[in-house]
């Protein structure tokens, strides 16, 4: 067990490294109102966060991360661009694994706005790579934007695309939906929409509207097997970045809508290269980040200690433009960032 004051000192050292890159320090309360977190992350967050009750403020949570309060602050202050660093405790309930910490220090670095998204992506990743370099970790990268672009370009209804997009982070449901998009939907035998007593917030009109929508959906032409096969192939792409890029370009003949996203990836790799990251040896995986919190929607990354299997990622991060928009509405700025775990880093020999 590493000494707590040593971890705190390491956290301060790491935060100072981000401050040296022009980040201003962000502080926020440990007790956060639960309502906004629940609305944003859904019921999953309640399973992962410590919930408590304030007699006057209602349901509160012990800070599960800094991201939401930071985005809120950035939006409330009406800022455009911004660059932040923070260090502090976060809390996670562990229902299944008694070896994982329920409380630990987290150090983060987040960039809002910026002229060119891929340059901000590269800047964040390069900062993490440089700080973590002495630990010999394995970086993993991905880009949720590719899958999003593939869905956007499908020759199917807006409703089906929206459903696929919504379930991007739930692989089995996504798979089921995709299969259904590839088939002619059989006529369903619903009971008469007039049956039963109407009560509750959801109205009979909503029931009728959904039945109508399902009927309309039935008329949508099913996706071809080739297209579905290409999506599967896309999801399976993994390897060194240049090889992944080549594989993506090949698949783009079936899924031309991903071409701009491929160019984004290529530009990002070039930007990483310009920041002295060895992009040629970087692992890239299209599905990376698909099973974490519904959070990131573009570039994603993590750093893993392969010599210590079972250890959570030492660092992770990515782009979360949609989250920022969900919190800030029209004022939500594009944002990218990541977090480090100083406790894990010390255990791996950092700072010595």
């Amino acid at each position, binding site marked *: 067990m590493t000494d707590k004051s040593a971890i705190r000192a390491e956290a301060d050292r790491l935060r100072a490294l981000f401050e040296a890159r022009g980040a201003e320090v962000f502080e926020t309360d440990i007790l956060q109102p639960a309502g906004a977190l629940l609305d944003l992350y*859904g*019921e999953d967050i309640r399973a992962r966060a410590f919930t408590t009750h304030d007699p006057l403020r209602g349901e509160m949570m012990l800070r599960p991360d800094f991201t939401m309060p930071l985005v809120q602050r950035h939006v409330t202050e009406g800022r455009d661009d911004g660059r932040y660093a923070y260090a502090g405790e976060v809390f996670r309930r562990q*229902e299944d694994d008694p070896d994982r910490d329920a409380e630990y220090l987290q150090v983060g670095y987040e960039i809002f706005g910026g002229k060119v998204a891929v340059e901000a992506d590269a800047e964040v990743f390069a900062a993490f790579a440089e700080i973590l370099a002495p630990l010999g970790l394995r970086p993993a990268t991905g880009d949720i934007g590719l899958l999003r672009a593939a869905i956007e370009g499908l020759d199917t209804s807006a409703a089906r695309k929206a459903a696929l997009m919504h379930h991007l982070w*739930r692989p089995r449901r996504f798979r089921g939906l995709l299969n259904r998009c590839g088939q002619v939907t059989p006529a369903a035998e619903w009971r008469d929409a007039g049956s039963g007593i109407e009560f509750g917030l*959801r109205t009979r009109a909503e029931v009728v509207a*959904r039945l109508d929508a399902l009927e309309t959906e039935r008329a949508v032409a099913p996706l071809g097997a080739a297209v579905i096969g290409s999506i599967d192939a896309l999801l399976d792409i993994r390897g060194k970045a240049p090889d992944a890029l080549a594989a993506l370009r090949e698949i783009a003949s079936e899924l031309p809508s991903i071409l701009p996203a491929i160019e984004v990836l290529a530009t990002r790799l070039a930007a990483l290269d310009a920041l002295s990251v060895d992009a040629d040896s970087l692992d890239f995986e299209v599905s990376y980040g698909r099973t974490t919190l519904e959070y990131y929607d573009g570039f994603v990354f993590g750093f893993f200690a392969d010599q210590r299997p079972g250890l959570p990622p030492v660092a992770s991060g990515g782009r979360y433009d949609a989250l920022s928009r969900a919190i800030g509405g029209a004022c939500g700025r594009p944002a990218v960032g990541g977090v480090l775990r100083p406790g894990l880093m010390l255990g791996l020999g950092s700072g010595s």
Partner: protein
Amino acid sequence: MTLKLGVPSKGRLMNDTFAWFGERGVKLGLSGGAREYAGRVEGADKVELVLLAAVEIPRELAAGRIHLGVTGIDMARERLARWDSQVAEVQRLGFGKAELVIAVPDFWVDVTTLDDLDEVATAFRDVHGHRLRIATKYHRLVRGFLRDNEVSDYQLVDSQGATEGTVKNLQAEAIADITTSGATLRDNHLRALDDGRILASEATLFKTRASVWDGGVREAWECLQSRLGLA
């Protein structure tokens, strides 16, 4: 040391438990009047009867304050994280059978499966500005079930009783509750989803996995086991 057996302190569950042990030659009973929560045991040595609220039995087992306890499978799995690392099922007792199900208003003719519920939850959020609420007292079980089935866009609201009334009272849009015959659901114009069965429960004899089996307790348990025909 005596072997402590926790039994629900009232109602049908208590009577059925007493009957189950009685049929096997172990007579359990209340020691004083019916209002006194102290018990007696005849027909087994070094066994002490502890009367507890059924919902507290999982916790007391986990803490090792009782060695054996009778409670529903639903209670044990709801109340204990990683339940099977804390308690073990000894015997299902064949009564107190019930199912934990997800139910929606019967007039939602467009919702018969979890897939429907998931789609409707997303649409509901767009229309009403908040997540579709499911009223329940089984938070851990319902959340785990919906996570495993990748249903999102819902929110649990706590309901400790009269859960079937929460939709009509605008506290929730759907419920997850224990049902035996389905009659209460039907009376409240609710209908279980075709694939919304979360758990089949029944009264079960559990034993603790805490290390409290020394000082003659194990021997008392072995005696009781053979008396009950479980060994």
